[in-house]
């Protein structure tokens, strides 16, 4: 019984990841993260993603503040923030977030305020979608762990 449950959860995780790959939400860089996770840092993916969420939320908050300012003209700062966001998103393999960020950035380079506002909305949407998906993934993983009592995400390296 126990084994069956783990298999099912494992299948769920695989399905989820596959669909995320197919939708282009994630790309091969995410696999890089998983490769980096080993016995010495068993929660590496989880940690990195969490740092990413913390950082990104800060950046998004700043972006929104900058854009809400009516007399705002600091597109340069927006560009810097977006560079950060693009960099970290591509580092964790959040492909879609990265792509919409790039679009947002090109709007900011043109000082295109409506474009920026639209860009921010799309970025936030993608970001939240990613966050929800990751949350779901981690939830399943926690279940797996509760079954296997294994170290957190070691399953990926050694699912048996």
């Amino acid at each position, binding site marked *: 019984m126990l084994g069956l449950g783990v298999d099912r959860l494992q299948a769920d995780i695989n399905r989820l*990841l*596959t669909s995320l*790959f*197919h939708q*282009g939400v*994630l*790309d*091969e*860089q995410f*696999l*890089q*993260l*998983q*490769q*980096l996770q*080993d016995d*010495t*840092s068993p929660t*590496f993916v989880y*940690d*990195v993603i969490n*740092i*990413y969420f913390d*950082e990104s939320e800060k950046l998004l908050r700043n972006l929104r503040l900058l854009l809400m300012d009516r007399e705002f003209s600091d597109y340069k700062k927006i560009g*810097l923030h977006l*560079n*950060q966001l*693009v*960099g*970290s998103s*591509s*580092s*964790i*393999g959040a*492909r879609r977030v990265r792509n919409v960020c790039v679009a947002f950035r090109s709007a900011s380079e043109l000082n295109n305020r409506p474009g920026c506002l639209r860009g921010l909305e799309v970025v936030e949407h993608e970001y939240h979608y990613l966050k929800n998906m990751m949350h779901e993934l981690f939830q399943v993983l926690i279940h797996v762990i509760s079954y296997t009592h294994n170290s957190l995400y070691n399953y*990926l*390296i*050694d*699912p*048996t």
Partner: protein
Amino acid sequence: MVCEMETDQTEEMDIEVLSSMWPEDVGTQADNQFNVEKPAGDSDTLKEVDIAEKRTMADLKRLPELMNNTDQGSSQLTNLVKQWEYMQDHAVKLLREELKILTRQREEAEAKELKIIEEHNFETQEPENVPVLDDTSHLFRKFKHKKRDALVGSKRVEIDEEFDTVAYWKQKALSLEKMLEASTERERRLIEKLNESLKTMESHSAPVEELTQNLKRAEGFLHFILQNAPIVMGHQDKDLRYLFIYNKFPTLREQDILGKTDVEIFHGGGVKESEDFKREVLEKGKASKREITFETDLFGSKTFLIYVEPVYNKAREKIGINYMGMEVTDQVRKREKMAKLREDNAVRKAMESELNKTIHITEETMRAKQMLATMSHEIRSPLSGVVGMAEILSTTKLDKEQRQLLNVMISSGDLVLQLINDILDLSKVESGVMRLEATKFRPREVVKHVLQTAAASLKKDLTLEGNITDEVPIEVVGDVLRIRQILTNLISNAIKFTHQGKVGIKLKVISEPSFASAGAEEQNSLTETETSVWIRCDVYDTGIGIPENALPCLFKKYMQASADHARKYGGTGLGLAICKQLVELMGGQLTVTSQVNAGSTFTFILPYKVATSDDHSDDQDFSDMVDHHQPEPDDTTEGYFQFKPLLGSIYSNGGPVIGNNFLPHKVMLTSPLKLINSFVTDSSNNTAQSEMVQVENGGYMDETCSGPCPSKETESCSSSQASSEGGVLEMESELTVSSRVEEDKTETSKQPKILLVEDNKINIVVAKSMMKQLGYTFDIANNGVEAITAIKDTSYDLVLMDVCMPVLDGLKATRLIRSYEESGNWDAAREAGVDIKTSESEQVCVHSINRLPIIAMTANTLAESSEECYANGMDSFISKPVTLQKLKECLRQYLH
């Protein structure tokens, strides 16, 4: 009538100021002085206008004859006669009316007289007092007569006195006297009236004068209308000799024209034509119009619209022609211009639509290509997910069967990835996106490595050889990656279709080929300081060859020599197309000669710049690494390599390579990774024991019929080659890497010092983890300023530098570091505002006079960005996101 017609015509013409038909300055003063410049107003003004009658020139003897003989002439005369008759009739009518009035007056007078007579009643008693009045007076007689006829009771002179008394006679005499007076008075009045009538009669009695006047007016009117009209009129007889001309060219005199024909008067183009035309009209007897352009000495080029009508005499015989010419040069010119414009317009429109069509087609093609590229890209992403997952899966514990299945899966995935990469490459070249990069490289080493790589995966009994002539420079500048790709493609192609014998590469310098001389001039002029060299590269084999009819479509996309070949040998048919496009992109030419069953030779000719030897080598090609760290003086000039089949042997034999004293770990470090992979298929293998590797490797191959595997690094070249063998690829596993790294660690006595300059937290975390896996640690700087400070204090072996950073970006920081290396001080950095704390001792620091390798980490992988990196003194660059593979390669390249 005629005049009216003329005026109508002039009104129909363009409303513009018409210059005179003939030039203004030609002709005598006298001709011009009476010309009315702008006749205005109605016909009344004609009376005051003095018409110069000089324009007409007529043969006065023959013209009246003409007038009498022709229909027109007689009709005009008739007209005039009629007019005169009409006027006479009118005069008669007037006279009659006058007569009527007079008659009535006379009757009245008679009636009055009768009354008087009645009053006096002379009837019976007195004799006729005839003597009083003159008998000869006609009127009186008539009156008398009438009196007798008409008077019934005429009045008598009433006398109150007794008859025959003195008083009576006296009275009678008095009254008679009165009557006589009245009568005389009447007579006088009548005479007056008669005189008056006579006078009026006189005034009507000169019809010829009147007619002359009328004629004069008509003529004046005609002159007035015609004198400024750009019209020339004339009459010519049967022989086309002029009898009459109006508005002749000013310098011609009477004797010049009259009695002569056109041909006799004018010379030049159009004269003959007009003469013929007139004759034609004369013969046909039908009036017609024609436009004739004259090109005469007299008045230059002028176009006339000529109207010619035949003239008949009363006997209906032709006696000549009337002609009228109107100058329409401007109109014709305008019309021609319009026609030309219209034509141009039509042509332009046609061209435009043609262009639009072309643009449309091009756009469609571009879109199709773009779609292909996008699709390929879209396929690649999930596919790399699949392959990546499979790779991860392969690192787990699997039994033999599972591993084999997985290997098939990964290699198939790799094949598809390769195909997609090919398509993307192709669309990149075609859309002009692909940029070439100029790097320094050693052609001998490239050839050697390509052959080495091919030999490593060779499963056939083939000899691979390389032959480079001495004059080929040791180092040249070109896009080594692309050249390698071409060579590898051609070599693997050759191997694929060759079952025995040899496959080889021959390099030699040739003179500039003819196809390039035109285009090369421009390039040469740009880089005059550098010498360029043309190298011809032959890739030959002793394979199945290519039939002649298949040669034309050899370089076409998705085409193979025959369907049969496609089945037998597989492949996408893209390889040669890419090679050709790449060669052409680099300004060269790819050709092929072949003989069925004897072999084929693919030849490409490319221009290279010759690298100057004093340049410090910032070459990043892997092939160079061998020599940088394993100096082999022979190798740089070695012109011949040979690689015998790998089967049964460990690595390669023959050629200079065998002489390399490689320890296993050295092999890993210095030669392309596929070698490692072919050895280290399992982490449990001890790579140091080469015998065992050989057994393992051979056994493995026997079992699965698979060739050794290329790694991702050489994906572009080797995987196509591996695929050409139809073999199964085995991907390098991460476990292999880590086990190797573990080994490296034990071997490496000194841990290299690495500085990571990066502001992004996530990137730092990821990089840290990667470095840990690779067995390295590093220091972190968050921006360029921190990096400079760190470099000042510590001696690093390698710097990984983010390009885009706050405070001081990577490019600037690198420039400052380079400037320090050159000058030995940080003045430039200080000038740039970096706060450097100097201590005197540090001015003569030992550590970083050597060039510090700086690797850029850039999110932008476009060529210009990499150029920017190089321009700012960076040694290489890693495109973001950083992967383990990229990092590993980079570290391998710069840390050993």
